């Protein structure tokens, strides 16, 4: 027998209780991993989508809640393109639109010939030929979801479009986009002359501080707009922030639940095992050793629950990200650091839940317990 096997014997002697407690820790850590991972996935897919199309900064309507609900004039692009430090500007109209099968797709439109088109990595077909062509370019993910390829037709904005090209990308968001000419999108959504944002490409010869100066100057020159460099934009994105806040609050509730479960289990165990604890004290176990044994038992449950919770959380996040509603929009981002954080959290859950029950053993009087058998 070792201290570890003694703790395991104690946990095994109440298998149902141990498993139920373990399950609550798995639930807590699993939801922490899944929710935080998915929320970060929202952020990182936004960020990589912007970076992939060579956009350094985004100009949108001042005060708009997010990019899709912002409205700016398409003509703003021409004026921005002439501003110092800006090498190119492209108006963009994005729409989240539903499909016949109930799924949804993000449609993005740029003027034919503008720089975002040029950054796309075509694996088949070509880009739209003219501003008025009813032609669509699909990311590989969209093409797979719709089951179409170059030459097929799909319906977007209640209008049939011909698929003329397929693009590959590292960004899950771009893989799942449908891209059409700006003029066509404006006409079909009754937004002539409008855009949701302007993509800016800054002159490549600028260093970071010069870029900041350029952006600051643009803010002065175009006061009715919000101009953000892409990385900062992701942080201020309302949707990403809501996702993050929601996931955190749900995870915190689950974590508290796990602390209470451990507390309940360990205080019941201490109550039931008063005789054992009195004997340990009577045969000379130091109080710290007895307290340590109780804490150790709790930590076995919580850390095992933490590790299993990581596995469960990854599985849940993966399966959620494949479900119809969010497929292609969110790719769970579960970093090794997040896993380390989760296991450390499980350690804290164990300690926080068990510390009071463990200390209760100290106030136990062995003689009075041993008398009353």
């Amino acid at each position, binding site marked *: 027998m070792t201290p570890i096997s003694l703790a395991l*014997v104690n946990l095994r002697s109440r298998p149902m209780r141990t498993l139920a407690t373990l399950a609550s820790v798995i639930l807590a850590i699993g939801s922490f991993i899944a929710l935080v991972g998915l929320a970060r996935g929202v952020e990182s897919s936004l960020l990589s989508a912007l970076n992939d199309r060579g956009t350094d900064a985004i100009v949108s309507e001042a005060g708009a809640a997010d990019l899709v609900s912002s409205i700016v004039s398409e003509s703003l692009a021409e004026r921005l393109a002439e501003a110092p430090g800006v090498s190119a500007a492209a108006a963009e109209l994005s729409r989240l639109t539903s499909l016949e099968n109930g799924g949804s797709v993000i449609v993005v439109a740029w003027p034919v010939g503008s720089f975002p088109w040029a950054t796309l990595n075509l694996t088949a077909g070509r880009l739209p030929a003219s501003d008025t062509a009813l032609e669509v370019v699909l990311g590989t993910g969209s093409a797979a979801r719709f089951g179409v390829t170059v030459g097929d037709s799909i319906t977007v904005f209640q209008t049939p479009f011909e698929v003329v090209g397929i693009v590959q990308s590292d960004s899950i968001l771009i893989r799942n986009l449908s891209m059409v000419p700006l003029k066509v999108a404006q006409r079909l959504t009754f937004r002539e002359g409008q855009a949701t944002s302007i993509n800016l490409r800054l002159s490549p010869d600028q260093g970071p501080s010069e870029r900041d100066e350029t952006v600051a100057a643009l803010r002065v020159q175009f006061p009715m707009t919000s101009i953000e460099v892409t990385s900062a934009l992701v942080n201020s994105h309302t949707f990403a922030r809501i996702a993050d806040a929601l996931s955190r609050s749900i995870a915190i509730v689950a974590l508290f639940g796990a602390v209470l479960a451990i507390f309940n289990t360990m205080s019941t165990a201490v109550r039931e095992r008063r005789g054992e604890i*009195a004997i340990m004290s009577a*045969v*000379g*176990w130091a*109080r710290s050793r007895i307290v340590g044994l109780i804490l150790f038992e709790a930590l076995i449950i919580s850390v095992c629950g933490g590790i299993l919770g990581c596995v469960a959380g990854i599985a849940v996040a993966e399966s959620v990200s494949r479900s119809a509603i969010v497929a292609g929009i969110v790719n769970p981002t579960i970093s090794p650091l997040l896993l380390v954080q989760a296991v450390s959290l499980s350690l804290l859950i164990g300690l926080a839940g068990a510390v009071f029950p463990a200390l209760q053993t100290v106030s136990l*009087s062995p*003689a009075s317990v041993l008398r009353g*058998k």
Partner: protein
Amino acid sequence: MTRAGSGNLPAAVDARGLVKRFPAQQTPALDHLDFCVGSGEMVAIVGPSGSGKSTLLYALSGLIALDAGTVSVNGQTPDRPAAWTLLRRTAIGLVFQEDWLIPTLTAGQNIELPMLGAAIDKSARVRRVRSLLADVNGSELFDRRPASLSGGERQRVAVARGLANMPRILLADEPTGELDTANSRAIIDLLKRLRAKKGLTVIIVTHDLQVAEACDRQFLVVDGRGTDQVIVKEHAG
């Protein structure tokens, strides 16, 4: 007070003026009781039920807080619970009136428990458990759980547990109550052997006349007060 039979040996246990009053009790469980046991002595504590014998053993091992009196063990007077715990880990072995074996552990693991508290090396622990079980005629009990043992078998395991950390003093509360004459004899012989070999001091609460007579002297407790009862025999040393 008397110090029969131990005149030239230092006191293993020296208790003076012990008073213990439990709440809601008219007469104290210990009433100005003096009790002194020489090192290597073997003393039987006898007396009627409820007279305070178990309470005396608890007092001698620091398991209850006294209302008055002092207890010194091997010349030390522990003043903090931690000091008593250390003594129970190193110098005092205990056998309780009920065996108090832990039901989820095997007999061997129950005996190992005090050694685990004393951080004794693993292989040494297992070796010692085996030899202690052999000493109490219980080698075959190693893997058995307390629920499957007879009352006498449990008592023998409890005695082995009391001896686990090789204490200098063994306090045993009716360790032979459930044993037949042969096994009871075997326990007494074992304790006498340990006394001869290691100078073990033995204090046994017993109702068994044979066991009491096998000891050097008998200490009678009545209504929480103690007196030496019978003349001491020579002990083999």
